[in-house]
């Protein structure tokens, strides 16, 4: 019975969302507001259950241990974050944000280096050596497509890109346009598959039950 209720709620909400196809309307807006509210609250519930409660239980079990005392530092920073609501001491909240941004920058630096940059440079496994060379050249052209300034002034004194630079930029832009076109096609086919899956799910479930 509860499954049936869930199925009907899900079907109604799906129809509310699809009603956007005939234009912006209150049903669509209600469902979008519902989604924002449920998602935000669900994120809070997950964070409390998965992160904050285990810390609380650890501290409660042995309050005097160094592992528990060490949590006083982030609690202090959390209190400083709360101070952002008070204008006279709102600057204290910047310190907590600074900690988050500093740690985030360090993680992003290493993540970008070891997770993206290095694997993209060394992890090339082309089918043939020629394909590898072509891919490498096109990659360089793609990167140089973002070079918007000239390397040195021309004889006229104007900072205009040289002919070779413009050629490389054009090739890079062609590669980028084709890439975006292919990505667009991939996203569209994913959307179509999801649409078919949703319709198939509801049709199958409703046929089975009624």
């Amino acid at each position: 019975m509860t499954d049936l209720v869930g199925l009907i709620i899900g079907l109604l909400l799906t129809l509310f969302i699809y009603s956007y196809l005939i234009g912006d309307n209150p049903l669509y807006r209600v469902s979008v507001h519902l989604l924002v509210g449920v998602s935000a609250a669900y994120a809070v519930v997950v964070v409390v259950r998965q992160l904050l409660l285990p810390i609380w239980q650890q501290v409660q079990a042995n309050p005097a241990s160094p592992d528990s005392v060490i949590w006083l530092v982030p609690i202090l920073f959390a209190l400083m974050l709360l101070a952002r609501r008070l204008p006279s001491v709102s600057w204290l909240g910047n310190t907590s944000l600074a900690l988050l941004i500093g740690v985030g920058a360090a993680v992003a630096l290493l993540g970008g280096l070891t997770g993206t940059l290095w694997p993209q440079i060394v992890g090339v496994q082309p089918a043939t050596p020629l394909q590898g060379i072509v891919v490498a050249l096109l990659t360089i052209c793609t990167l140089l497509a973002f070079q918007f300034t000239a390397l040195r002034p021309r004889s006229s004194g104007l900072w205009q890109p040289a002919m070779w630079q413009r050629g490389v930029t054009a090739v890079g832009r062609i590669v980028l346009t084709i890439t975006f076109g292919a990505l667009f096609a991939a996203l569209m086919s994913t959307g179509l598959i999801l649409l078919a899956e949703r319709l198939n799910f509801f049709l199958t479930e409703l046929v089975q039950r009624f």
Partner: protein
Amino acid sequence: MKLKQSIAIFTAVFFGLLTLVALLFNVSGLSSVILGWASFLAAIALILGVMNLLLVHLTRLFKEQNLYSGVLVLSILGVFAAAVLDGLTGSNSVNALFNWVQAPLEAALASLLAVFLLLAGVQLLKRQHTGWAVLFSVTAVVMLLGQALLTSRLLPAGLRQPVNQIVEFVQNVVVTAGLRGLLIGVALGTLLLSLRLLMGVERPYNK
């Protein structure tokens, strides 16, 4: 420079470099402590953000009688109430709400993506009569049709190999190069911004 700003800059640089050293030299105890603190702070920031969202929409509900805000407030309070109920009775109401409300809504919105993309593509061709727009659209059509035809029986056997070669060339050479260029560009940008943050040159927290 004011002392208040200096404290924030010192905190960012100190904890950033400490994390970097701990991760680089594999000081697992130190890195897990600092990452745990950062996760804790991020969790508190998330909770504060959601509370702020709740307050803003409560104000809109009572001052402007905005019913959409009422829906949002009710949905937030409903999930919180379900979580409290779960804690008291051991039931699984939050997961039921997720499966009944959030998952269908997200799936429905994602499945509308195809329609939105199609409309956006048509708008692009209508508004921009440039070579770039044509190249973009031709690539999208070729890839969509190519993939669809390769999996169907409509394509004659003689055409199967050339279509396959075109689709493979675009995917394995051009798209690979384009995506690799984009990823390397993003990674270089991330490295540069991270270094500026760690050196205290960029200070978004003091704005």
